[in-house]
């Protein structure tokens, strides 16, 4: 119950930050990405504020052996730069630039209007598509000994 309440409050705090910083307005996001137009650098400062506070927070918590409401911190965190990381990030960036929504702001916007709802609906489809593609590779790997099935399971799942 504590974990649920904490999760809800963390989500609300996250959303408040997105609304205050203007990130729930797609025009503000594309205003940053549209470097050839009237460039709006606000998004960069949102990241500076968020990274700065979180960097200090992580540093302060570095000596803790376990989180307050769970058994352990999430580990290990992957370090290898690979093709899925780059290709996936590029596909994400293309979608981000088209609508001006990334996952957090879109889910907040889903509570406020049709565009957010449509976007999150599409996101659910994209996530399902990824699961489907993964399972295809996994079953192919199982049938063909030359493709190691472990390669799929070994793909990192913990850095975002």
């Amino acid at each position, binding site marked *: 119950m504590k974990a649920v309440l904490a*999760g809800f409050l963390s*989500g609300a705090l*996250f959303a408040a930050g997105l609304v205050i910083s203007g990130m729930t307005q797609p025009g503000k996001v594309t*205003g940053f990405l549209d470097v050839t137009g009237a460039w709006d650098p606000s998004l960069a400062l949102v990241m500076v504020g968020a990274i700065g506070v979180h960097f200090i927070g992580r540093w302060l918590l570095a000596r803790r052996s376990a*989180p307050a409401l769970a058994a352990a911190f999430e580990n290990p965190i992957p370090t290898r730069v690979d093709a899925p990381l780059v290709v996936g990030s590029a596909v994400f960036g*293309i979608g981000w630039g088209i609508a001006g929504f*990334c996952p957090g702001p879109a889910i907040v916007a889903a509570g406020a209007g049709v565009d957010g709802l449509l976007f999150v609906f599409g996101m659910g489809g994209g996530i399902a598509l990824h699961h489907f593609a993964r399972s295809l590779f996994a079953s192919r790997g199982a049938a063909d000994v030359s493709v190691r099935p472990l390669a799929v399971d070994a793909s990192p799942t913990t850095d975002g």
Partner: protein
Amino acid sequence: MSTFTPISALLGGALIGASATAVWALHGRIAGVSGIMDRALGAPAREPWRVAFLVGLVAVGLLVAVLSPGSVGHAAVSSSAVVLAGVLVGFGTRLGNGCTSGHGVCGLARLSVRSLVATTTFIAAGVVSTYVTLHGIGAVR
């Protein structure tokens, strides 16, 4: 168009960083929204804090819709383009294992090289796709 708002950007960003820190301190997890959504959809009963986090996001959206509807804007493209963008973002963030929050905020804050590569890549791709959307396809329409 949109204007530079440095104070609210830094303040809002600080709240996002505080939330990510709370998620790490309390749940021991990375506050990556795409990952939270993926796992909440996949196994909602296993770690209910993820579902609660998403409910918190939506609840603020509902509140804002009532109190300050202008704070949540609309996309500049058609509804079908919004859905398509959502599919690309859903698939891409899962393949790349993170989005603006997981890689851009949490990953960079813990000095991850993977997240630096991911963030550079999605911002570059976003710049190109925004250009094509606003000045290519959009300009024709």
